[in-house]
């Protein structure tokens, strides 16, 4: 019989941090990986944010020797693609003056391939004394008197422990077998597919400079992300399960086949290298994260950021908290659901908890905007482009152009106004809480608006500024 204090199913960044934390606290720890090594079953999850360096000391040891794909960038580009599949414009943005965390002024993400990052981070756990079992798929849980007390692998081998941490990703055996859920609801999970392109590092540096990533906002496809590594880049897109009316690759190929994109591939000397697909939980709030003897972390627990689905940082943070709560519960001799509830209390106090406080509003607006190309982006893209690019026209007097632009923008209002009412105001009200809640009351705005319009000059001024 294999007996441990704690079992962690999954050796991604969350599982490894949980294993490291548990081992450092003196627990006899084992963690399982179904691949031959950690990271070889992962796709995407490639951008590391500056807060990881703030919260995890080990990140300072990440070097190109350990992780050759790493590439940090300070800028992000937003491309706007119209209904005719033409890149109508783009904005390149660097950290703005309001950014308060000093390191975040010089880089926005560190991009890495998980095939390099996950093995690296798992070594901190094994160095701390945790045992890593690779090429081992956990297929069931051991239960006694209805309570989980271990796991069973595909060969029937049993491993016992007081607590099992489910770090086994989106399709979590631990979650299902412990009864915490049967399956995600269709609006709690997205399917993401992406190509990896290889490109010479010097081409990427010459052409992309210090850009870390790009988002391609489309009027005919869901928003597509592009993430640059040292010698290649990902181009991917995703959407909730219920959205797809065609093979998801149809939409991704639309991006890749944009004329602009083909030019980019050509000058970058880029070639397709790998095709990847994965499910990604994308929730407004994580529920059912624990039961007797079980805690779910990372993707298994539904922790990716409700706005951008950043997953690695929430996985590492919940992994650390889960191991701390588990250690305390084990030493107290009580691993019941009531005691493990402390896990929820603790993550809710972190930046992840703060993120999920506005989780529903963030999730809702994101779902309705970049992921609703036909309903929303079809008017959003031309509206943005009127604002950004409308003035560049040398065929008419500028005053006439401004009137044309204003009139065009006004034509989008029947669609934009309900969108703002339904998605933007609730988010703003949630974030700024009470005071703005009152200000943002749609009824109040509708009473103020006519008064504001009255303040505008009614008469046209004659040339030279004299009154008519």
């Amino acid at each position, binding site marked *: 019989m294999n007996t441990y204090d704690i079992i962690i199913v999954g050796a991604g960044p969350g599982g490894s941090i949980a294993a490291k934390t548990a081992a450092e606290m003196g627990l006899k720890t084992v963690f399982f990986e*179904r*691949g*031959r090594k950690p*990271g*070889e*079953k*992962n*796709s*995407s999850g490639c951008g590391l944010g500056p807060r990881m360096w703030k919260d995890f000391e080990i990140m300072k040891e990440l070097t190109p020797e350990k992780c050759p*794909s790493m590439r940090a960038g300070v800028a992000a580009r937003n491309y706007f693609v119209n209904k005719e599949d033409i890149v109508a414009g783009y904005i390149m943005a660097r950290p703005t003056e309001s950014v308060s965390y000093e390191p975040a002024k010089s880089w926005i993400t560190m991009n890495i*391939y*998980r*095939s390099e990052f996950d093995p690296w981070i798992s070594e901190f756990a094994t160095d701390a004394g945790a045992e890593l079992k*690779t*090429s*081992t*798929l956990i*297929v069931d849980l051991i239960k006694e008197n209805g309570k989980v007390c271990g796991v069973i*692998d*595909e060969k029937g081998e049993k491993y016992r422990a007081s607590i099992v941490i489910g770090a086994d990703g*989106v*399709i979590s055996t631990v979650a299902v077998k412990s009864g915490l859920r049967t*399956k*995600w609801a*269709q609006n709690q*999970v997205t*399917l993401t*597919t992406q*190509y*990896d392109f*290889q490109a010479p590092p010097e081409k990427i540096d010459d052409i992309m400079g210090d850009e870390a990533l790009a988002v391609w906002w489309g009027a005919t496809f869901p928003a597509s992300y592009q993430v640059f*590594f040292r010698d*290649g880049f990902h181009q991917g897109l995703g959407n909730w*399960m219920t959205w*797809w*009316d*065609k*093979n*998801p*690759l149809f939409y991704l*190929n639309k991006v*890749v*086949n944009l004329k602009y994109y*083909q030019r980019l*591939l050509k000058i970058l000397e880029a070639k*397709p*290298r*790998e*095709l*990847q*697909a*994965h*499910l990604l939980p994308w929730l407004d709030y994580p529920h059912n994260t624990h039961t007797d003897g079980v805690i779910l972390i990372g993707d298994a627990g539904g922790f990716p950021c409700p706005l951008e689905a950043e997953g690695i940082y929430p996985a590492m943070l919940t992994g650390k908290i889960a191991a701390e709560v588990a250690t305390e519960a084990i030493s107290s001799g009580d691993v019941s659901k009531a005691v493990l509830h402390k896990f929820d209390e603790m993550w809710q106090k972190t930046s992840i908890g703060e993120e999920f406080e506005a989780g529903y509003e963030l999730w809702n607006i994101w779902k309705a905007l970049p992921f609703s190309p036909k309903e929303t982006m079809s008017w959003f893209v031309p509206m943005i482009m009127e604002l950004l690019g409308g003035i560049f026209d040398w065929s008419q007097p500028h005053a006439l152009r401004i009137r044309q632009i204003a009139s065009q923008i006004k034509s989008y209002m029947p669609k934009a106004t309900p969108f703002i009412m339904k998605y933007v105001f609730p988010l703003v009200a949630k974030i700024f809480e009470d005071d703005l809640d009152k200000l943002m009351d749609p009824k109040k705005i509708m009473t103020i608006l006519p008064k504001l319009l009255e303040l505008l000059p009614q008469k046209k001024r004659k040339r030279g500024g004299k009154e008519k």
Partner: protein
Amino acid sequence: MKIELENLNKRIAGTGNFISVDNNKCNRCGRCLIICIMNLWRKKDDTIYIVDDYQSKCLECASCYQVCEAGAINFQYPVGGTGVVYEKG
């Protein structure tokens, strides 16, 4: 530009059978046919099935399992150490 999907992924043989469908539970909604990136599902004479050589093409994303509201598709990850390997994931 047509990207050839063959040979874009490395695979370790020996996965065993890891996807199956129960046609008694299946309601023929066809969502598995749409969602599969690798286009591995077929419909013939009102029966849904996955192609015979799916083990050498599947990306193991589990979308077919997740999207199946009828609970007709069974999915378990392949045997440890086998199946698709993402070298640049």
